[in-house]
């Protein structure tokens, strides 16, 4: 049977082939039936039409459905053609080799997982608040720059990074990014990569916490419902530990119902006098509360708080994202924002300072290119992959889904009135935090088509059940208003708007609190490992005192940046968010640099451009953005320029300057800009060290021309599973042979 998949070699004769013959895969890919041609032509035409509607037609308004079509069609084309190109020429997965999940199987950490389930797992692990916040802030530059970057960036950079890192980690027994950096880049490059990872972790936790503080401050409803997640999680943890171990779905449904009760109850509590008195909390006490919470949560056992909240957050994440996608497709909101706003070129936007290049690319990190994913794509997921060829679906495909979440967040932010958008996202320093101040400031920006009235602000605040929506910076409240605006058209009408708003706030706070807790734990282990080189006792991670000291150090580090952000006279988010994006893109540059060194050592120089392209771009973006933050003479952009301006004002004996009303506030600005500037210098130095180390490793490999490899030795596989979401005819034929084996438990759910 020349066309049968059973022609593929097997290593053990007692079972059917473990892989489809590569010639058959090749023939399947190259066989263009009329139906297949028609489908791809239709996808290409629809995608092309959508891009024309977004980029060229640009009517008075643009319908959100064009964003969805442009994104989805481009993802399909990128997945079918570009990721296959990478698979064929660069990675060359071999299904006859066992994955770590097979040859290291222990039934716990290393366990072969169905590709469709693992896709969901991986997506839930990579998608958090990042893709929801960045696009909202970038919406000030108009809809087009963000849309292009999110869609094109993911196809050529973000998904490529996730796919490569996942594949290389899988070939190395599931090694982490830090370990791979040490192996490939040597001592200096590897150490710089580890220091960078630790610092980035601190920055990211601090800024995510800042987003939560900004969303909850002065909002008794939000504080009550988010605070209730703690007892709900504790209850779920005890239920799973003592009452019904392993009943994860059951307890998640109970938790979800309690969560809905907390959101609805929050509305009632916020209407009582005692509720307002008890749960209206200022930014500073709220920030201190989160710092204390972060410390306690990170030293409590995982089963009590982290694990149950993880289940809840996975449940909410997948459910809400599906619901939002459905709502956008059904409601199809009109978008009034211009394609490219004046702030893209002037760089004077009130939300985040700076021009389109490079600041758009650091404001939107998650969703287009997120270095943080490299930490998940190495280590966790590779230990669960069943077959090598599945990495394309899980790694590349998983990131496409996150990009789609970012597009939906952008659509939600753009669907609200632009005047309201700027009133919510301009710092309190600019608006004075009052309706009158916000109206004067936003109308004074001179944006065409924007005519904000005090009634619009007070009406929106009343609709979403908040005292005020002025200067609710950080992106989360804006997204929540956008989501509430879209969802109420699908379910419930304007009467449910307040519910949807607080549902969205809860949804984001849940991920962020989990990220804060988990990030603190990971950082604590990294710190203990580092201190352990000097004081060996710290290497023992079960030593309580050491664990507490290390946790306290890490919490103090991110807590200090958080407090700096909430008390910043210049606004907080607008000065700190670029650091978040730079840190994330820097981590991406490190991950891509490690991948480049690996590819060079494998000897695939012809296809090095696949990784050199995104690496070059990430390097240019992070280094130029950092240089602007360090050297720009414009105070709104350069940290040191701002620092010098305030020091000069203090030296001149001024008692108020810019948005700082007192000498104390002026001193705070001097201190904050110094810290931010020093962090920028640290980041850019680490980035340059790692990239130079990778380039040197690449050149060395080119000179030597040997295909040395740090991969684990190949072990023959003894299992079979299809590679993509839908099995091909050849895969179905093989699957049938495997299913027919006696004594094999057949997998359910085809």
């Amino acid at each position: 049977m020349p066309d049968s998949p059973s022609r593929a070699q097997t290593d053990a004769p007692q079972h059917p082939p473990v892989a489809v013959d590569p010639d058959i895969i090749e023939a399947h890919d190259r066989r263009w039936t009329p139906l297949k041609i028609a489908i791809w032509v239709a996808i290409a035409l629809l995608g092309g039409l959508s891009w024309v509607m977004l980029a060229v037609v640009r009517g008075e308004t643009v319908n959100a459905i064009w964003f969805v079509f442009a994104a989805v069609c481009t993802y399909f084309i990128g997945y079918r053609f570009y990721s296959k190109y990478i698979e064929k020429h660069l990675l060359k997965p071999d299904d006859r080799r066992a994955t770590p999940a097979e040859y290291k199987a222990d039934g716990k950490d290393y366990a072969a997982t169905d590709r469709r389930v693992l896709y969901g797992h991986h997506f839930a692990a990579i998608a958090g608040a990042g893709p929801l916040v960045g696009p909202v802030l970038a919406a000030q530059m108009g809809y087009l720059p963000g849309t292009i970057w999110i869609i094109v960036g993911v196809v050529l950079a973000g998904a490529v990074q996730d796919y490569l890192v996942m594949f290389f980690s899988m070939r190395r027994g599931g090694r982490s990014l830090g370990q791979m950096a040490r192996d490939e880049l040597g001592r200096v490059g590897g150490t710089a990569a580890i220091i960078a990872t630790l610092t980035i972790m601190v920055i990211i936790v601090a800024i995510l916490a800042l987003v939560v503080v900004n969303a909850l401050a002065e909002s008794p409803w939000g504080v009550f419902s988010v605070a209730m997640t703690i007892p709900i999680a504790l209850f779920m943890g005890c239920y799973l530990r003592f009452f019904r171990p392993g009943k994860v779905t059951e307890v998640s449904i109970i938790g979800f119902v309690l969560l809905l009760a907390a959101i609805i109850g929050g509305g009632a509590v916020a209407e009582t006098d005692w509720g307002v008195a008890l749960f209206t909390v200022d930014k500073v006490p709220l920030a201190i509360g989160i710092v204390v919470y972060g410390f306690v949560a990170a030293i409590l056992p995982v089963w009590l708080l982290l694990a149950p909240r993880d289940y809840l957050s996975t449940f909410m994440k997948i459910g809400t994202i599906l619901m939002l996608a459905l709502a956008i497709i059904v409601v199809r909101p009109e978008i009034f924002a211009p394609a490219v706003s004046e702030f893209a070129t002037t760089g004077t936007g009130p939300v985040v300072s700076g021009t389109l290049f490079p600041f758009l690319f650091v404001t939107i990190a998650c969703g287009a290119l997120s270095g943080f994913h490299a930490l998940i794509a190495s280590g966790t997921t590779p230990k669960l992959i069943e077959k090598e060829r599945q990495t394309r679906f899980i790694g590349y495909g998983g990131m496409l889904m996150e990009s789609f979440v970012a597009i939906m967040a952008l659509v939600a932010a753009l669907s609200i009135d632009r005047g309201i958008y700027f009133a919510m996202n301009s710092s309190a320093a600019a608006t004075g935090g009052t309706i009158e101040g916000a109206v004067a400031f936003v109308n004074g920006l001179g944006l065409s088509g924007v005519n904000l009235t005090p009634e619009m602000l007070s009406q929106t605040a009343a609709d979403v059940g908040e005292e005020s929506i002025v200067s609710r910076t950080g992106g989360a409240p804006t997204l929540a208003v956008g989501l509430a605006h879209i969802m109420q058209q699908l379910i419930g009408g304007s009467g449910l708007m307040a519910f949807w708003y607080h549902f969205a706030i809860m949804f984001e706070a849940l991920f962020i609190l989990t990220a804060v807790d988990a990030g603190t734990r990971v950082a604590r282990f990294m710190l203990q490992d580092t201190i352990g080189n000097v004081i060996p006792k710290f290497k023992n991670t079960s030593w309580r005192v050491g664990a507490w000291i290390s946790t306290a150090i890490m919490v103090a580090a991110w807590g200090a940046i958080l407090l700096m952000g909430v008390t910043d006279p210049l606004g907080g988010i607008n000065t700190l968010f670029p650091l978040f994006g730079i840190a994330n893109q820097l981590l991406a540059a490190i991950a891509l640099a490690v991948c480049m060194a690996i590819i060079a050592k494998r000897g695939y120089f012809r296809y090095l451009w696949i990784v050199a392209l995104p690496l070059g771009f990430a390097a240019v973006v992070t280094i130029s953005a950092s240089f602007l933050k360090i050297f720009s003479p414009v105070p709104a952009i350069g940290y040191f320029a701002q620092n010098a301006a305030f020091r000069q004002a203090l030296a001149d004996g001024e008692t108020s300057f810019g948005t700082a009303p007192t000498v104390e506030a002026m001193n705070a600005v001097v201190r904050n800009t110094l810290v931010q500037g020093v962090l920028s210098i640290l980041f850019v130095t680490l980035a340059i060290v790692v990239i130079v180390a990778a380039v040197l490793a690449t050149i060395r490999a080119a000179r030597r021309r040997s295909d040395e490899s740090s991969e684990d030795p190949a072990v023959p596989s003894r299992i079979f599973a299809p590679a993509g979401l839908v099995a091909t005819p050849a895969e179905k034929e093989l699957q049938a042979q495997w299913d027919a084996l006696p004594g094999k438990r057949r997998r359910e759910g085809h």
Partner: protein
Amino acid sequence: MRAVDVARGLRWYVRGIMGEDAYEKYLDHVRGDHGDAARIMTEREFWRDRTDRQDSNPQGRCC
């Protein structure tokens, strides 16, 4: 496809995503070719062990 199959498929998928099938997968492993069948954890022990191992080997969540 019958409604029962759809429901069963959905249940299988939700359990997989939530990680609820972890103990069954563990049993499959220890009872299979490679396992050390001498000491199989009970369901309660397995779930305790699972969270306890997360304590000493934390995994980051993404931003």
